[in-house]
C-alpha cells in the first residue's frame, strides 16, 4: 500500500509499505476514506518530539471502512463506515472506565520512553512516534485499529465523510476544552487559535451556554472563517494588544474561561517571540508557550485556563505567580475522544455542528509532502489538508 512517511526532520515522502495486519484479536483493519493533517503532526515533523524512525507512517485523525475483523471484535463487521478516536483506549483500565481515555494504562507499548519525560506514560496514539506506542498512522491506504470495539464508531448515514472526519480528533478535542474548562451559562470565553481545534472549542463553548465567545488569531482568512462558520467574535492579535482588548470587551474583568488551542510552536508579534524561538532552538526550552502565557495573564481572577494545544516538554518563565495570586484553575489534557464522539456524531446529524469547511484542501497520498507544506505555512488559506487515498495524483 502507499503511505505518507516521516524520513527525518522536515522530510516526508510517500512510500510503498507492507499492508497492516491483524496483530491482536481485538483489532480491525480499515480501508482509509479520509485522513487529515493536524497541527500536532508538525511537532513530530520538525523534530520537537523525538522517538520517530525513518519510515514511520503519519496521521491520527481519520475515518474508513472496516475490511478485516479480529476474532474478538464484537461491535463491528466488514463494510462498516467508522470514525476512529486518535488515542487508543483499552476500554477497561481504571482510566478508560472513568472516561479519561488518553491516559489508558494498556495501549502505550513503550511505557519506559514517555515516563522518562512525564513521570507516567499516556495512552497510545496512531502515527505519533514510538514514545506514544509505535502504531502506524492513517495517511495510508489501510490502517490497523487496536481495541476497535472501544475506539471506532459507526458514522450515521446522514453525516458525510468530510464532516465525520473531524470527529476523530479536532471536534472532541475542542469540545473537551470547553467541557473540562467548566464553561457555564453566561460565561465569557476566549479561545487562542483559529485552527480546527480552536474553532471547535469556540463552537462547543457556545453550545455549552457561553454568552460571548472571542477567538484570537492573526491570519485574516482564519479569523473570517471563524466568524462566518462558528459565529464568535474575533481579535487579530497582530493588530492590537490582546489583553487590553479582552479587558475592554469584558468590563475590565477578563474572560471567565481561557482556552489555549495553539501549542508548543506559538507565534507572537513582539520581541518575546524572537526570545522564545532562540531559547527553543538552543534547547534551553522545548516549547514556546506564548499563547498560554497570554491566556494566564488575560484570564479573570478565579477563572480557568484550559491547555488544549500540544506541549512536549519544558517551558521557561512559566507565570506560576499569576496562577497562584489570581487563584486560577489550570487544566490540560490530550483528547478523551471516546467520551465525546458518539454525542458529537449525533450533533452533526442534527445540524448543530458544522465541520466540513475545515477541509480546505484535499489531496492524494502522493501529495503528502505538499499537503504538509500547505498546512504548515498556511498557504492558500489552508486550515486542514485532507488526504483521500482514492484520489488520483494531481
Amino acid at each position, binding site marked *: 500500500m502507499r*503511505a505518507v*512517511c516521516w*524520513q*527525518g526532520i522536515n522530510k516526508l515522502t510517500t*512510500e510503498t*509499505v*507492507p499492508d*497492516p*495486519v491483524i*496483530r*491482536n*484479536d*481485538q483489532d480491525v483493519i480499515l480501508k482509509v476514506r479520509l485522513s487529515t493533517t493536524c497541527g500536532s503532526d508538525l511537532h513530530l515533523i520538525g523534530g520537537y518530539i*523525538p*522517538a*520517530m*524512525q*525513518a*519510515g*514511520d*507512517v503519519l496521521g491520527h485523525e481519520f475515518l474508513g471502512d472496516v475490511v478485516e475483523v479480529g476474532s*474478538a471484535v464484537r461491535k463491528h463487521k466488514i463494510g462498516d463506515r467508522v470514525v476512529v478516536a486518535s488515542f*487508543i483506549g*483499552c*476500554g*477497561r*483500565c*481504571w482510566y478508560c*472506565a472513568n472516561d479519561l481515555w488518553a491516559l489508558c*494504562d*494498556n*495501549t502505550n*507499548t*513503550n*511505557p*519506559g*520512553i*514517555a*515516563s*522518562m519525560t512525564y*513521570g*507516567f*506514560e499516556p495512552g*497510545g496514539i496512531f502515527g505519533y512516534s*514510538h514514545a506514544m*506506542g*509505535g*502504531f*502506524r498512522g492513517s495517511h495510508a491506504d489501510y490502517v*490497523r485499529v*487496536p*481495541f476497535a470495539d472501544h475506539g471506532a464508531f459507526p458514522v450515521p448515514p446522514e453525516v458525510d465523510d468530510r464532516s465525520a472526519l473531524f470527529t476523530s480528533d479536532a471536534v472532541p478535542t475542542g469540545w473537551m476544552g470547553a467541557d473540562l474548562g467548566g464553561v457555564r451559562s453566561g460565561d465569557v470565553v476566549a479561545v487562542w487559535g483559529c485552527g480546527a481545534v480552536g474553532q471547535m472549542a469556540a463552537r462547543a463553548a457556545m453550545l455549552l451556554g457561553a454568552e460571548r465567545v472571542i477567538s484570537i488569531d492573526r491570519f485574516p482568512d482564519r479569523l473570517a472563517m471563524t466568524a462566518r462558520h462558528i459565529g464568535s467574535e474575533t481579535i487579530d492579535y497582530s493588530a492590537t494588544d490582546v489583553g487590553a482588548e479582552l479587558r475592554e470587551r469584558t468590563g475590565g474583568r477578563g474572560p471567565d474561561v481561557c482556552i489555549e488551542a495553539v501549542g508548543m510552536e506559538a507565534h507572537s508579534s513582539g520581541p518575546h517571540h524572537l526570545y522564545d524561538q532562540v531559547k527553543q532552538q538552543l534547547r534551553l526550552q522545548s516549547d514556546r508557550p506564548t499563547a498560554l502565557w497570554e491566556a494566564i495573564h488575560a484570564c479573570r481572577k478565579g477563572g480557568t485556563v484550559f491547555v488544549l494545544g500540544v506541549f512536549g516538554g519544558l517551558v521557561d518563565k512559566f507565570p506560576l505567580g499569576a496562577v497562584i495570586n489570581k487563584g486560577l484553575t489550570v487544566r490540560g489534557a490530550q483528547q478523551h475522544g471516546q467520551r465525546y464522539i458518539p454525542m458529537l456524531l449525533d450533533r452533526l446529524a442534527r445540524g448543530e455542528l458544522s465541520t466540513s469547511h475545515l477541509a480546505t484542501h484535499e489531496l492524494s497520498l502522493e501529495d503528502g509532502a505538499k499537503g504538509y507544506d500547505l498546512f504548515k505555512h498556511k498557504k492558500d488559506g489552508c486550515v486542514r489538508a485532507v488526504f483521500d487515498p482514492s484520489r488520483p495524483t494531481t
Partner: protein
Amino acid sequence: MNVVRTGALIAAGSVIGRMVARKIARRREPEKKPRWLTVTVNAPLDEVRAPLDEAVAELDVETRLAEAPGGRGTEAGARLRHGPVDPAPVRRLAGKDPRQDVRRALREMKSLVEAGEVVRPDEPTTGKRTPGGALVRLATRRAGGEGRL
C-alpha cells in the same frame, strides 16, 4: 627523613583505619532489599491472584496483593528475592537489569486481566537504518521493562 616516614605511616594507617571502619559499619547495616514493583489492576483481588502467580512463575520474586483504596481494584506487587537494589544504567541499557522482566510481567498481567490481551505495536515499515533510528530501536527494546512501577 624519619619524620617523613613516620608521617607517611600515620597517613597510611589513617586511610586503612577509615576503610576498615566503613566496612564494619556496612556489615552492621541491615541488608537493603530491592523495592516492590506494583501495578493497580482494575479488577477484584480474586481475579488477580492466579494471573499474578502465572505471570511471575519463571521469576525469582515474592508477591503481594492488596485491595486498592477508593474502589480502584487490586494492587499487585512483585519484589526480586535477590538482585541489585539499584543497577547501574549500563546494565539497564544492556537489558541485564532483572527488574525489567518483573515490570514487563506485571504490565502484561494487568493488560490481560483488564483488556483480555497485550496490545502489540505495528511492524516497522521500511527498516531503514539511521543513527537516530538505532537509538529509538534500542529505547523500544528496553521500554517495556522500564518506566515507573
